[in-house]
């Protein structure tokens, strides 16, 4: 890497050191480019939200030791269409789906290891390849491979400015150790994630409600590159309000609580708001299909707080969570402990219990345990809540990522507002996932988009740089 005072020159500058960024960097390096990765987090927290991931959705034609059965292109696409309400870019979506088939083999080349399909906590063995040890282990493998291949990685390196001329990238201003350094490159890959950790931006979108959001992932996704690119005339995709948000324990850390703060008890009992009233059908569909709507549901409740309430019948039948339940021997006592109006909660619970119709409970199917005459009804897994001790968990909206992003074409090239591609700027990962899905989510598709578009963007950037 040529160093000239504060100026560093390379072929490809990769902004963001998560999964998509590293996939781009490794691909560009293998194509012969001199690559520099600018990671705004310190080494310990490198990898963006990828460090919290666990698997990657993957089409495949037949059973293997990674995935069972088959998961064909058509089925993958229809899964995607179902959750997005048919709002996707068909060309880009198919590109991701077809590209997903070869992801595991490519990842293996850089030392990534997978779980065997025979065991595992989640029932996704057919559609999703699980990383041995999770996403941080993947990132460790990628960073080790980057070092072996001679990719330069700068940690604590926050991009604070872009030098663009006529939509062409010339250089990035990078804040390192309190000094702004200029990194010049022939091409840039932007893989810097969404803006979910930017509390001011969240407040602009959600108002005061944003103060009560918990950010499940990295505190480093501040959306700086999104803003810089929008200011430079890049076209946006997706709505700033759309995000992936789940119900997390209200006692979670503000940032970076990851997977362990989510609660899986909601569909087994009732969920009430601060007034002690139910507000949504807890048994609408299987929990894995519905858990990502609860973040937004709670965000719309007063003070953005809700409470999951179960009794001893279901205690211990859901994934244990990291915070202990608040336990009481009566509904009234529980209400007091949770700071809810005791009479109201008692009324809600007894009205619910009275409305529960007889049925045979089975959490593995959409069973016939439902309520009748309630508003809202609970349409499955409705069981009376009358067997003490009662458990309560306080809930907050836990935001995983945002969908607002940069519009790209099939080469990963960023599109400007006039529709023309930015000459040498590519995007990959969460920052452009909105091209493929702008709402809803299917498990593991974020890592698929990051890997496929990371490889595309890295390859195109290297080619653009003349390598």
């Amino acid at each position, binding site marked *: 890497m040529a160093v000239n005072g504060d100026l560093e020159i390379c072929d490809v500058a990769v902004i963001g050191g998560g999964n998509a960024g590293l996939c781009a960097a490794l691909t560009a390096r293998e194509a012969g480019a001199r690559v520099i990765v600018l990671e705004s987090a310190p080494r310990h927290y490198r990898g963006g939200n990828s460090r919290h991931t666990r698997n990657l959705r993957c089409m495949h034609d037949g059973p293997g030791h990674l995935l069972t059965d088959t998961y064909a292109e058509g089925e993958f696409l229809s899964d995607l269409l179902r959750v997005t309400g048919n709002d996707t870019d068909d060309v880009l979506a198919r590109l991701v789906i077809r590209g997903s088939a070869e992801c595991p083999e490519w990842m293996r080349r850089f030392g990534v290891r997978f779980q*065997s399909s025979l*065991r595992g906590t989640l029932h996704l063995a057919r559609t999703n390849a699980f990383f041995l040890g999770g996403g941080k282990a993947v990132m460790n493998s990628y960073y080790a491979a980057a070092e072996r291949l001679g990719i330069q990685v700068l940690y604590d390196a926050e991009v604070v400015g872009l030098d663009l001329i006529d939509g062409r990238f010339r250089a990035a201003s990078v804040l390192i150790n309190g000094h702004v350094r200029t990194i010049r490159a022939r091409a840039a890959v932007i893989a810097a994630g969404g803006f979910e950790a930017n509390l001011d931006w969240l407040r602009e979108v959600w108002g005061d409600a944003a103060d009560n959001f918990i950010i499940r992932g990295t505190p480093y996704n501040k959306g700086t590159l999104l803003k810089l690119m929008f200011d430079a005339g890049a076209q946006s995709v997706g709505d700033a309000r759309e995000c992936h948000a789940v119900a997390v324990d209200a006692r979670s850390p503000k940032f970076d609580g990851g997977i362990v703060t989510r609660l899986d008890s909601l569909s087994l009992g009732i969920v009430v708001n601060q007034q002690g009233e139910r507000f949504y059908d807890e048994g609408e569909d299987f929990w894995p299909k519905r858990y990502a709507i609860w973040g937004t549901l709670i965000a719309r409740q007063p003070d953005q707080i809700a409470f999951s309430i179960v009794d001893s019948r279901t205690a211990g039948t859901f994934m244990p*969570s990291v915070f202990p339940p608040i336990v009481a021997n009566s509904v009234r006592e529980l209400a007091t402990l949770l700071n809810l109006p005791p009479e109201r909660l008692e009324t809600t619970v007894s009205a619910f219990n009275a409305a529960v119709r007889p049925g045979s409970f089975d959490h593995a199917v959409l069973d016939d345990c439902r309520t009748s005459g309630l508003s809202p009804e609970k349409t499955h897994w409705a069981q009376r809540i009358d067997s003490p001790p009662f458990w309560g968990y306080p809930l907050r909206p836990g935001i995983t990522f945002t969908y607002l992003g940069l519009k790209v074409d099939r080469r990963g090239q960023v599109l400007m507002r006039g529709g023309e591609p930015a000459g040498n700027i590519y995007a990959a990962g969460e920052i452009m996932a909105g091209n493929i899905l702008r709402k809803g989510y299917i498990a593991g598709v974020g890592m698929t988009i990051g890997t496929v578009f990371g490889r595309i963007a890295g390859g195109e950037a290297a080619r653009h740089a003349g390598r």
Partner: protein
Amino acid sequence: MPAGELIRQGQHVMTVCNACRYCEQYCPVFPAMENRLTFATADLTYLANLCHNCGECLYACQYAPPHEFAINVPRTLAEIRAHSYEHYCWPRSLGLAFRHSNLLTGAGLAAALIAIMFAATLVVNGGRLPRPVGAGDFYAVVPHDVMVILFGGVFLFVLAAIGVATVRFWRDVQAVTPPPTRGPAAGVRALRDVLTLRHLHGSGADCTSAEETRRPWRRWFHHCAFYGFLLCFASTSVAAIYDAIGWRAPHGYGSLPVLLGTAGGVALLVGPAGLLLQRRRRDPSLGGPAQDGLDQSFIALLLLTALTGLLLLVLRERAVMSALLIVHLGAVLALFLTLPYGKFVHGIYRAAALVAYARESRV
């Protein structure tokens, strides 16, 4: 860290792990953890002794320090494990002596025993070390009956101490794991895991010595130490049988006890020396300070025993043999006396935990 705090730390770690489960295919610790919702002291003891300290789960952990959850499974379990050795040992008062500066205690004991044996030999022989006339006549230095009584007595004591500790440990583990199964399947599986050290390469790669650094050496050196110890033990057992039928030492260079002892002695030099080197290169955040002393003391005594044993074999016809024999016997005595109160017990508890795990994972 006081025991109560250690257990609370273990409960915190396992609660976070049990809500995450990303590490579930690294080793038996995590599947065993998933069978539990709460973690009493006995559960933690069991899990801690299942852990082989391969290190993978620390580097994979999104909650590792400096994250505020500060999850370090290998280190936490190593500390609980070291505490369990002390907790279960018999008599318990002796375990306390090994809590701090285990290396000093072990070395001090060896030095004291050697000094006493020198003094006794000098007193008995009128102020001079005996110079045996016949080649390698050990019994001219330390009389046969003295050796039998001394070593027989120590051996029986060690057997009793380890036996009591094992029963105590096993009783607690059994209380938190499924009841015994019919047939030998679980035992066979556990034995295979012990003999092959399967969980030091259980996830398809060697265990880690630092982030993204996987090396087979720790496993191979451990194999050397383990099988070297068994060979030496076999050598001594054969020699004891020979002795019982009136076939007294020294035995020829081609005899079974000497062949077994030589192979074992060499392995016992290579293994522990390698483990000592490995330890210095390993990421220190993987282990607790309590473990260090335990390891060093055991390794030092193994090395001293192996080294003096091999020297004795080579130099048994020289005049230095008398002194060397006393040093060797002192080292062996110290090694045996510290077995119930040092790192040696990890093998027994680990094997017992693996038997319990084999039962538990069958269902």
